[in-house]
């Protein structure tokens, strides 16, 4: 049963919510500026609730089952986070209230900044960026501002490993930089020679993801950073994979000058069906002055009786703000709750078990799937979803078939350096029982690839929808609907 569109459920004149009559005189409306038609759907509250309740049930989500979507850290989102972020003392704060009225919120942001500094090894962090990619843009602009400040206007080249996420090159070109792609070596590390060859005085820096998108900790990370620094460049760290290394290794200690955190990955804030995220950016001491503002600082130290006084300050050479207001505060509250519940040991345990789970899957799956860079991995690994003796079966077919077992598929076709990539990130919140069931399903699929490939090509079979025609969508480009009379109720039989 498909669900009608909200517009198709509309009946003219119906009302879901109404508001009081004005308690003030009506003012005349400006002539010529008022709108004549406002084609929004008209429904009762029950229609709206049913519609979205039924829609929700068509989703796979962390709350309904395993979601090993590589690079996305689909860990469980603790329910207490959803309560704390809704405390009226947080939810009903206007971003521009006088700072004296929001000391609790500022204190929370300050402590979160400090915690992230500690986890990453950084001197300062701005919470403003809205997501990972936004953090990248912020970080690269900081690098550029730093270099320009030193008069190094010729530095316009940025190095990006071929395993990098698409946001890295996209960010770089948004920032006006020229991207040079660096190949990976046989062990899945950045090819050190290729990198060194590009380390000249046009170098602005390197964007590196570590652990990288193969799930591997680069064995030459120190040398890589050293080479870039030697050439006068800076190193940007894509922190998407921080979940592997909290309390295990601090990016700043390894030479990464600036990095974004993904609160929506590492720190358990929900992905929201696509967002919101939050991508705070941490920087080493030499970049502190360039952070986007404002950030929270203590403007009067605490004394015996009084707590410290917090306020917003803008760093002296700030690149400027990267969005309105102060960032995704509601996400901060969740992440702060999460960090408080874990402490240093707890966060290390998180990373340890994320890595344990990934390796457990890896050693079991390599019996049936080729794993191109097969060494101890961090929080994720990449398998090949293809076999020479089952030429018609592709990673996509495996993914679709996994849905029949109640699993969300791994990330497909990324990173680009592995053909038919299946990028698998179990996270630490999954139990051995779930991993075992996934291993069984993957085994059965490997069998079916040989015995019954049609079962895979036709998958999924047990989901509410079969495969969707993406070509038709792109060709016809029906991107929104109009108010029409439509079926009000889906039918049986």
């Amino acid at each position, binding site marked *: 049963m498909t669900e009608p*569109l909200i517009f198709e459920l509309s009946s003219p004149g119906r009302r879901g919510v109404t*508001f009081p009559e*004005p308690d*003030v005189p009506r*003012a005349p409306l*400006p002539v010529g*500026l008022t*709108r004549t038609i406002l084609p929004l759907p*008209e429904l009762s509250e029950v229609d709206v609730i049913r519609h*979205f309740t039924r829609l929700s049930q068509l989703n*796979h*989500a962390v709350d309904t089952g395993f979601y090993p*979507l590589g690079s996305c850290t689909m860990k469980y989102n603790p329910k207490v986070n959803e309560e*704390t972020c809704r*405390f009226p003392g947080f*939810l*009903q704060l*206007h971003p521009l*209230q*006088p700072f*004296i*009225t929001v000391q609790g919120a500022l204190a929370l942001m300050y402590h979160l900044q400090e*915690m992230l500094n*500690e986890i990453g090894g950084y001197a300062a962090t701005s919470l403003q960026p*809205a997501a990972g990619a*936004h953090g990248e843009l912020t970080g690269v602009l900081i690098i550029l*501002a730093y270099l320009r400040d030193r008069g190094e206007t010729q530095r316009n080249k940025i190095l990006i490993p071929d395993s990098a*996420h698409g946001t890295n090159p996209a960010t770089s*070109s*948004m920032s*006006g930089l020229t991207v040079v792609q660096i190949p990976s070596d046989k062990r899945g590390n950045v090819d050190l020679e290729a990198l060194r060859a590009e380390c000249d005085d046009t170098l602005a820096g390197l964007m590196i993801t570590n652990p990288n998108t193969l799930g591997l900790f680069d064995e030459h990370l120190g040398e890589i950073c050293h080479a870039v620094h030697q050439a006068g460049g800076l190193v940007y760290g894509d922190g998407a994979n921080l979940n592997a290394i909290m309390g295990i*290794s601090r990016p700043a200690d*390894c030479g990464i000058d600036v990095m974004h955190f993904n609160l929506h990955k590492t720190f358990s804030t929900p*992905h*929201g*069906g*696509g967002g919101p995220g939050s991508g705070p950016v941490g920087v080493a001491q030499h970049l502190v002055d360039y952070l986007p503002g404002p950030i929270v600082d203590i403007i009067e130290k605490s004394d015996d009786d009084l707590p410290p006084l917090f306020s917003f300050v803008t760093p002296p050479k700030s*690149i400027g703000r990267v*969005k309105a*207001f*102060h960032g*995704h505060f509601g996400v901060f509250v969740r992440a*702060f709750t999460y960090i*408080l519940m*874990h*402490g240093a040991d*707890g966060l290390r345990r*998180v990373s340890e*078990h994320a890595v*344990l789970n990934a390796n457990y899957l890896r050693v079991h799956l390599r019996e049936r799937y080729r794993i191109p860079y097969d060494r101890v991995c961090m929080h994720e690994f990449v398998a090949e979803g293809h076999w020479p003796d089952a030429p018609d079966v592709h990673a996509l077919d495996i993914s679709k078939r996994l849905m029949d077992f109640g699993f969300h598929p791994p990330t497909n076709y*990324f990173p680009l350096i592995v053909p038919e990539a299946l990028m698998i990130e179990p996270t630490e*919140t999954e139990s*051995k029982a779930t991993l075992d069931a996934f291993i069984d399903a993957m085994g059965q699929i490997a069998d079916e690839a040989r015995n019954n490939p049609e079962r895979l090509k036709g998958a*999924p079979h047990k989901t509410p929808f*079969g495969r969707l*025609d993406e070509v038709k969508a792109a060709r*016809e*480009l029906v*991107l929104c*609907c109009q108010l029409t009379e439509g079926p009000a109720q889906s039918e049986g039989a």
Partner: protein
Amino acid sequence: MFIPHTDSEREEMLRAIGVESIEALFQDIPEKQRFPQLELPPALKEMEVAQELQTFASINETSNELTSFLGAGAYNHYIPAAVDSILRRGEFYTAYTPYQPEVSQGTLQAIYEYQSLMAALTGMEVSNASHYDGATAAAEAVSMAYHHFRGKRTKMVISNALHPHYRETIRTYHRGSEVKIVEDDKQHSEKFERLADLIDENTALVYVGYPDFFGRLFDLTDIANSTHGAGALFAVSVNPISLGLFKPPGEFGADIVTGEGQPLGIPLSFGGPYLGIFTTRKEHVRRMAGRLVGETIDTRGQRGYVLTLTAREQHIRRERATSNICTNQGLMALAATVYLSLLGSGGLRQVAELCYHKAHYAAEKLTALPGYSLTFPETPFFNEFALRCPRQVKDIIAFLLEHDVLGGYDLGQDYPGMEHDMLVAVTEMNSREEIDLLADRLAEVSYD
């Protein structure tokens, strides 16, 4: 807790992997940098953390405890309970970007409905699935205009009355590019003459607020014509609530409409997460940034939805992508979708009217006080207006706060010379008594 492993399971797993201990999995990390001792507060149990966070929350004074007239880009509207009841559904908020449409039709159809609603509301043809907020949507509009002219036009003419944060964000985003931002001054007349004067054949985009940062509403016909006359694109940043009552930018010929979606059922939450609205005309769809959902059918003949035109995006096109945006504001777009579905055209119009009438009542009350007047007395406004005050606004705000009133926004912070101008916002949440109270308090403020 959140790590489910029992000791025996952990042992079994390590054995399967063939290592002695978890530590052994981290050999690739140089010893010197391995296992730093982090200094973080000691771990709290759920029960303790709930109390701890309550302590942080209770230190704040909320817009509900205070009587608030603060807007300036974020507004205190009523959010029907049904909105959050949908947002709390785990199937929505614990899913991610709907890469796998067969198990993501809930999210996909909701985005499609969001796109449809935004197009309808702004009077445009297509909408993306969201940007981070009104500021970054504006910055992306500038990028789009730049790419539209393939870099051949580099000048962006931006109204000085666009939200200061948006203007600053646009500048930050385009620090590294050839884009040149030029602004008029805030006093431009209803005809946008000063703005129009800045338009030339190198102009890619003309950007105005509707309502603008001062709450003002202008007829955009002429400026749209001037813009198009010069071959440039015309972009408008909106407050979506105002579109329940006022002509949508699409009717004025806008090429791009952006805006802050927060007023559509999203809590103030100290500034975020909010919602960046972005709509445009179909001809521009391939240069629009962000995710996009399109209708199609499945193998069983059912109507369904997929992410489409993904070739514009970073994960396919990489350094040639329209933007780097990946994670967006999915759940906030859902909030706006549920909000608008509940209100419908009648409800949205009602909210817009309440805001309008109450703001005008407030303006009348306040300007009747000696020493107070409208900064822009000639111009229609929506739910917010600049009030010229007899004293510096910063003193007035401090005085009001002593009486548990959150006064408006001090325009002097962004506009030198406007230290006596306060931006006062009124929504359906402000009762007549509250407005009268504000008037009473302001009457007590003596002249300098």
